[in-house]
């Protein structure tokens, strides 16, 4: 790194005429950013090698929030892992619930009732919405724009209120269960949801007016954090980052799960793959999510009341009346409470489209009540790996919007 020092006087003697044009070389310096830095929401450390203000290389150090997610899951029952999945991506907990539960259902060979599937789609789109609102809002905040951040957070509050109506919790939802959901939406939910959708659309319009055409915002976002299509694929980058680079890849379209094949929605793509494209893709995805939620509400109203949990006795508790009067059901109740379902021996991988990309769960069961292996394919972790490619040769200040749009969530990245 250290280069031979050159005396300024000698150099100015060489080319006195273009003294102001000359490249002033400085020694590279290593700047330590984080692990606790206002711009690294989450805990991550960057060792940035700088040439003046230009980034030469970045070593990203993750793992500060590592809390042994997989080890914990492998020591509890299949059900006990669901609350841990809430803590992966705390902006969109329902999506992680969904990925895990559907992977277990794949191992069990379970089908869920139709009403449950529509509820699952609706709740996961609410989660995606809150994640994108946080990403876009926080990106503005860190570019010193406080007002749009408040618009975004106000809209996020509305999605969290809806989440609270659904499952009683705002952030760590624990809503999706193996074979169903916790319970049906309350009767007041559809009208409140429609009202909130209108308000979220208004807030998104305000947000759009302040931010999308704002010169300062465009200057900071356009042309920064560029990652080409080919590099995205080499690094297995998925989600809005890949779509911003122009690849229309979305698990919801490529391998439709639940009822996504019956829903009308579009997959927005960008042109070049810079931060501004990522922002535009996220904004359009929020509008698409609102569209999906409206379709879900319509369909749920048409379906009418019905079961939201599978009747499979392996995951469902027997009816209380039978438990109190029959021996077999009493034993089954006892088994269900103390150890939960026994999952047949085997392995399965199931992926959902989370707000950050493909969130996959690879599960191995030895046939018992405890998972043998719970592997989470974390999109945050995998999308963060090419950060040095996005930032090589750019200014130090470009790190802030790029890191925002990558949307690394510590809980999911470090597990």
């Amino acid at each position, binding site marked *: 790194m250290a280069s031979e020092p050159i005396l300024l006087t000698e150099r100015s003697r060489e080319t006195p005429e273009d003294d102001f044009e000359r490249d002033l070389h400085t020694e590279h310096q290593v700047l330590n950013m984080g692990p606790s830095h206002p711009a690294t929401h989450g805990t991550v450390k960057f060792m940035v090698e700088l040439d003046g203000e230009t980034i030469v290389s970045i070593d990203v150090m993750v793992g500060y929030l590592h809390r042994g997610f*997989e*080890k914990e899951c492998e020591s509890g029952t299949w059900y006990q892992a669901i609350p841990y999945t809430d803590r992966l991506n705390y902006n969109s907990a329902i999506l992680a619930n969904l990925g895990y539960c559907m992977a277990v259902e794949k*191992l069990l060979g379970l089908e869920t009732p139709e009403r449950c599937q529509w509820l699952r789609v609706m709740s996961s789109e609410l989660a995606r919405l809150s994640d994108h609102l946080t990403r876009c809002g926080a990106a503005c905040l860190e570019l010193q724009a406080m007002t749009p951040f408040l618009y975004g957070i106000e809209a996020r509050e509305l999605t969290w209120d809806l989440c609270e109506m659904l499952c009683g919790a705002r952030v760590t939802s624990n809503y999706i269960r193996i074979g169903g959901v916790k319970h049906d939406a309350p009767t007041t939910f559809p009208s409140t949801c429609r009202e909130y959708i209108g308000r979220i659309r208004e807030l998104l319009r305000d947000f759009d007016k302040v931010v999308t055409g704002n010169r300062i915002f465009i200057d900071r976002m356009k042309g920064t954090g560029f990652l080409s299509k080919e590099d995205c694929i080499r*690094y297995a980058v998925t989600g809005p980052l890949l779509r911003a680079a122009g690849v229309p890849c979305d698990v919801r379209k*490529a*391998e439709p799960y639940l009822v996504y094949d019956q829903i009308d929605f579009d997959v927005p793509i960008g042109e070049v793959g810079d931060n501004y494209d990522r922002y535009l893709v996220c904004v359009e995805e929020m509008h698409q999510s609102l569209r999906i939620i409206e379709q879900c509400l319509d369909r749920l109203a048409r379906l009418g009341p019905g079961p939201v949990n599978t009747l499979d006795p392996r995951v469902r508790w027997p009816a209380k009346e039978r438990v109190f009067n029959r021996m077999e059901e009493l034993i089954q109740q006892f088994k269900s409470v103390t150890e939960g379902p026994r999952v047949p021996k085997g392995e399965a991988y199931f992926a959902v489209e989370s707000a950050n990309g493909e969130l*996959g769960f690879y599960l191995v069961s030895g046939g018992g009540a405890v998972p*043998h292996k719970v592997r989470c394919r974390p999109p945050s972790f995998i999308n963060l790996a090419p950060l040095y490619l996005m930032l090589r040769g750019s200014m130090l200040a470009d790190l802030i919007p790029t890191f925002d749009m990558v949307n690394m969530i510590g809980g999911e990245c470090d597990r």
Partner: protein
Amino acid sequence: MEDFGSAGLRRLLAAMPDAVVSSHAQHGDVTALLKRERLADAMRLLRDDAESAFDMLSDVCAVDYLGEEPRFEVVYHLYSLARNQRLRVKVRVPEADPVVDSLVGLWASANWMEREVWDLYGIRFRHHPDLRRILLYDEFQGHPLRKDYPKERRQPLVGPRN
């Protein structure tokens, strides 16, 4: 050996039949268990062949089957954007010689994920350019996702190096 309708596995079985130990398609996930020494060649074929075209290595992880021999299994999940198909590739790794060829040369995404497998399982990747711990710190003793690593074990606190 059956290919279960997967174009990728069919190409692999045709070109390198001796590399595949067994295959199955449990729950619809087509899986091939490969010989450890043929992994890199087989993966190169899966990536470059026009019919399989697995351009994404979407996941790398390991599983510890304590008590079995060979003890570990390294699991790769491949995805083809062009053909919208998936394939799971596995290799068994013995405890006495926990080394697999690195795939960083084929897919850049292998870099961090192989570091994670090294960190948590202690499986080394031959020719990996930068095999450091990633989620845990350098002073950490042992590899915590191994089944014989007790969940309650405490590690000494380490301060900043300078």
